[in-house]
């Protein structure tokens, strides 16, 4: 009976090690604090109806950013833990982590950074910007979009769940190689948590990708042919097409792994005729394209930014787009370079080696179009442009080291060394993360109506670049000296320790950079009067997202624009103003169906992790019911009439005017620096304390 009700769950699952106890306390405290604050402010209803159940891609985009930001801090903490261990665990000292725990930390770090940070930010950017760029009011299926987001959140909860129950995460590396991750060698629940957090969020990604393909291919403004699409939309389209191509692979592979672990099948086992090597192939057939799914939207961001800040149209636009398409197609046929050493024949290795090196060609093509765009441009060095330049420097190193790794004989030396780790971090940090930061800085005025503080932004940028070089150049060197990856202890005679310590210092500088970025956002809101952008077009932009107010109204466009050229908005500006007209607008209603389905999906996963079959079955039925109710709702939209739109627009214009009058731009004529920010915060804190104290007395 007990086993039926609770499966494998019992008292041992409760936190009893320092890191699970600390993690649990931190999570519960954060939850309680949030609940308390929201209740105090009486904001529950607002939160539910304005945000959580919203189907507005702009709000969903912001929610992705917030969740991704938290996960970035969470994954960053893992990174610092890894570096701390490696800096001290030499010779007699064995550091502060056990080998097993160390393995869990780097596994969680990889999963969180790829699935729950990078993917979240990329999807957030696509959600917010793509509909605006193509002149659409919404996505093709607003419901799939919330569903995808909430499945992602379910994955986030699942990946952190082991703190509360189970106490262990997978200790298998971020792709859980077989047969190590199979039932014989990983007996705990760690790998099950791994499977279900990836499975649930991965299905959300597939749904989201289908939705964006529908949106981009079917909902562009009249006149916007494919060759007139803004580069970011192109990058997103390439990325989403890759996602629908490879995410079903991940889903299938994870299901097979789950079957091995749960039902005792023999797909990837060493016994019963299973084939562990097949797992390696399948997971990398997804895994390699995945890194480009992240990279291509970032390429799109950079193209936009280079063009805007060089004040020139994108040079060789078609070449740029063809380059991105080339990258995304080549990327589907290079996966074997991740396991040159695992017994493929020389000819097979040669083929995949050549394909891998070929990828550098379309990538370089895209790079040259950026250089051509800058050539003879009047370049402005605002922070988005800085992120771009940082990206060029670091990503080039990463790409070149990739080409070295792509040569099979070299890879036999470098495979699974720190050289590899340095390679992909150059690309993932210098490419994807910098692309995300670049995009967020660039579009922040669109999200909020406020530009970001440049001064602190610049400091944050330099911390990232310097910190990156300090931690990853030693890592390249260590790799060349023969240091393997995933090392929890090394001999003192290797002489590696100084380099590891340098890496730790670099990591701390990066952490300072991250803290500065948070400070930057806070400072921008404090100085919002000075930094407010009332025009909606702070950078003198070229594409349609800049043609609407910042932040845009929930219906995006009063009238769907007609597009005649690539830089649609630039032309509109040259042509001068025209009179506004209004029309009826269909707006999708809010829905909580996505939330309910995701809660059930979470419990399916949870049930399978702990072998509580009834829970999984009941949750599955729950999903079916919610899905049916939603699918047969024939009125998921309401209509906003032309006169209502007119009123809303009038009210908005009036408010914008009032704000402008209210804002005699005199509060300071410079962005505040860090010291000032600290002063302001401390003064504010004292004021608050004094107020509560005196109120307490009275």
């Amino acid at each position: 009976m007990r086993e039926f009700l609770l499966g494998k769950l019992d008292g041992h699952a409760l936190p009893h090690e320092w890191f699970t106890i600390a993690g649990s306390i931190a999570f519960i405290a954060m939850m309680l604090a949030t609940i308390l604050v929201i209740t105090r402010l009486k904001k529950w209803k607002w939160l539910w109806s304005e945000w959580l159940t919203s189907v507005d891609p702009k709000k969903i985009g912001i929610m992705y950013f917030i969740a991704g930001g938290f996960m970035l801090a969470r994954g960053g903490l893992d990174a610092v833990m890894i570096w701390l261990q490696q800096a001290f665990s030499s010779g007699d000292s064995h550091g502060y982590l056990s080998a097993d725990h160390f393995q869990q930390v780097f596994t969680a770090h990889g999963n969180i950074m790829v699935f729950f940070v990078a993917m979240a930010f990329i999807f957030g950017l696509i959600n917010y910007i793509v509909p605006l760029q193509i002149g659409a009011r919404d996505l093709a299926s607003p419901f799939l979009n919330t569903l995808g987001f909430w499945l992602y959140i379910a994955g986030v909860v699942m990946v952190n769940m082991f703190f509360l129950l189970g106490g262990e995460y997978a200790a298998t590396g971020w792709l859980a190689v077989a047969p190590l991750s199979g039932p014989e060698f990983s007996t705990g629940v760690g790998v099950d948590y791994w499977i279900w957090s990836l499975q649930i969020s991965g299905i959300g990604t597939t749904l989201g990708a289908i939705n964006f393909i529908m949106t981009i291919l079917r909902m562009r403004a009249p006149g916007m042919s494919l060759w007139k699409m803004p580069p970011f939309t192109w990058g997103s389209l390439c990325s989403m097409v890759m996602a629908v191509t490879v995410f079903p692979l991940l889903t299938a592979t994870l299901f097979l792994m789950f079957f091995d672990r749960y039902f005792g099948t023999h797909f990837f086992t060493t016994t019963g005729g299973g084939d562990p090597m097949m797992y390696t192939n399948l997971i990398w057939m997804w895994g390699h394209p995945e890194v480009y799914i992240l990279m291509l939207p970032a390429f799109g961001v950079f193209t936009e930014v280079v063009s805007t800040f060089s004040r020139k149209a994108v040079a060789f636009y078609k070449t740029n787009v063809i380059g991105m398409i080339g990258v995304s197609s080549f990327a589907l046929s290079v996966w074997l370079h991740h396991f040159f050493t695992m017994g493929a024949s020389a000819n097979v290795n040669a083929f995949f080696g050549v394909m891998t090196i070929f990828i550098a060609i379309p990538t370089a093509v895209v790079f040259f179009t950026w250089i051509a765009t800058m050539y003879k441009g009047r370049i402005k060095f605002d922070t988005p442009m800085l992120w771009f330049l940082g990206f060029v420097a670091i990503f080039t190193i990463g790409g070149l080291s990739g080409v070295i790794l792509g040569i099979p004989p070299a890879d036999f030396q470098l495979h699974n060394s720190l050289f590899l780790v340095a390679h992909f971090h150059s690309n993932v940090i210098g490419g994807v993360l910098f692309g995300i930061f670049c995009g967020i800085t660039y579009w922040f005025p669109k999200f909020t109506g406020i530009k970001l503080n440049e001064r602190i932004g610049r400091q944050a940028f330099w911390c990232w670049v310097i910190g990156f070089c300090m931690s990853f150049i030693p890592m390249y060197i260590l790799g060349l000296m023969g240091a393997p990856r995933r090392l929890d202890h090394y001999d003192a005679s290797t002489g590696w320790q100084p380099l590891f310590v340098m890496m730790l210092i670099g990591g701390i500088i990066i952490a300072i950079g991250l803290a500065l970025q948070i400070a930057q956002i806070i400072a921008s809101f404090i100085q919002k009067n000075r930094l407010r952008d009332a025009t909606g077009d702070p950078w003198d932009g070229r594409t349609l997202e800049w043609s609407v107010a910042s932040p845009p109204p929930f219906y995006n466009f009063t009238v769907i624009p007609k597009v005649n050229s690539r830089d649609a908005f630039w032309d509109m500006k040259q042509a001068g103003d025209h009179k506004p007209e209004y029309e009826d607008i269909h707006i999708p209603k809010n829905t909580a169906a996505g939330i309910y389905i995701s809660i059930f999906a979470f419990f399916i996963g949870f049930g399978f992790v702990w072998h509580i079959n009834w829970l999984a079955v009941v949750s599955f039925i729950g999903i079916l019911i919610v899905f049916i109710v939603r699918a047969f709702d024939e009125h998921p939209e309401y209509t906003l009439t032309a006169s209502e739109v007119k009123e809303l627009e009038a009210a908005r214009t009036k408010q914008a005017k009032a704000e402008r009058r209210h804002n005699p731009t005199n509060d300071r004529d410079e962005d505040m620096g860090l010291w000032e920010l600290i002063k302001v915060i401390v003064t504010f804190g004292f004021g608050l304390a004094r107020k509560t104290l005196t109120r307490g007395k009275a």
Partner: protein
Amino acid sequence: MSRHIDHEAEATDRVMFGFWVYLMTDLLMFAILFAVYAVLHGNTLGGETGRDLFSLPLALQETLLLLTSSFTCGIAMIAARQRKKAQTLLWFGITFALGLAFLGLELYEFAEFIHEGHTMQTNAFLSSFFVLVGTHGLHITSGLLWMGVTLIYVMKRGLNDHLVRKLAMLSLFWHFLDIVWIFIFTTVYLRAFV
């Protein structure tokens, strides 16, 4: 009013396109399962092979049932497009019955295997067989569920645009499953005997 119709037509176009994309993702998932079967089907550890286990007449019956159901599904869709409610219900009803019969045969085959001790834990060949064919069976099951629920709504609400769109997607799904089955029939069952 005409604007409204435009809006509906556009929505239908979008949804159908999206559903195609979804079907492609599903197809890729099946492609993986086929590939896995192709890799593992020889790994019987000296146990019975497909040739010893499969019954061709049974597989042929299943194939015929599913093919016929695809045909009746097509007729049902024609009726639905012409808004003929009674005929739609009748032909989809027949499709449903054929689908159910197919599922019955498949379950019978599975039960038979398991009864004889050929479970999916036995060896890699049987693992991949059960998962490939079973995944198709699960798709058929969800198709039947979808059909049943939609038909109930058709009875209640009549054939409106919304429901006809649902039926159109369903028929795409059904034909898709038919095609996947043809692949299963050839690569799993027929190939075992060549």
